[in-house]
């Protein structure tokens, strides 16, 4: 329980710091605070999808269904954080650019990510047989993750974007107030902790579901 209370205090402290301590970016004014939710959501999306891909590879290597559970749950949560990033981003876009959706390269990339991982979850529900579903989903997940660095990091740097330049410029230096960076990265740590908590809860539920399914199958065999 102690780390959960720490997480509660950590995120609450980061929220207070974002509002009361970190300065505003002149061009963004009050909307600067959206950054503390939007950026961590986007980064945790990448972490979750990478976790899903890693466990898909492990499933293909070891054929252990626990890795399949990890891959499925991480993809679900990745999609959840991706929706969080898209919603916070579109509200920010409305305030800054006058429209919720502008088909900016980053917005288009996040739209494709939602489609790709939505299809992954659709695939999981449409394939019969636990082993077959796990194998096909693992192959899809590995292939899908190839697009993630491309869509998140490469596409927005190739095309002209309404978004500001990446946090770190070409010389590897941050063009942003260090206090803003500190709060943003504190939120990334907090959101990663939240992701870990949600992952553990959902995995436990998946285990209970599997145990019950096995008990039902064994019961019907007798």
């Amino acid at each position, binding site marked *: 329980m102690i780390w*959960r209370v720490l*997480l*509660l205090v950590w*995120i*609450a402290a980061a*929220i*207070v710091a974002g*509002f*009361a301590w970190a300065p505003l970016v002149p061009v963004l004014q*009050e909307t600067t*605070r959206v950054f503390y939710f939007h950026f961590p959501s986007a980064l945790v999306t990448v972490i979750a999808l990478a976790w899903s891909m890693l466990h898909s590879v492990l499933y293909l290597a070891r054929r252990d269904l626990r890795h399949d559970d990890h891959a499925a749950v991480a993809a679900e949560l990745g999609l959840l954080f991706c929706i969080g990033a898209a919603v916070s981003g579109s509200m920010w876009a409305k305030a800054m650019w006058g429209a919720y959706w502008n088909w900016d390269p980053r917005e288009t990339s996040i739209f494709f990510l939602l489609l790709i991982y939505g299809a992954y979850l659709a695939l999981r529900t449409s394939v019969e047989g636990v082993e077959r579903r796990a194998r096909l989903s693992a192959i899809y997940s590995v292939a899908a993750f190839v697009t993630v660095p491309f869509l998140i990091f490469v596409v927005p740097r190739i095309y002209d974007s309404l978004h500001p330049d990446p946090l770190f410029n070409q010389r590897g230096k941050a063009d942003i107030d260090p206090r803003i960076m500190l709060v943003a990265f504190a939120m990334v740590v907090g959101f990663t902790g939240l992701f870990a*908590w*949600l992952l553990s*809860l959902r995995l*436990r*539920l998946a285990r*209970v579901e599997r145990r019950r399914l096995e008990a039902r199958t064994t019961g019907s065999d007798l």
Partner: protein
Amino acid sequence: MSGNLVVMGVALLVWGLLFLFLVRLERRMKELEKR
């Protein structure tokens, strides 16, 4: 400034409610696992 305080309060409230929801979910999960 008061508008900022309201938004900060709402953000803290949402986080607090989410935390309580997850703690409750955790308790229910423990009960499910015991069954």
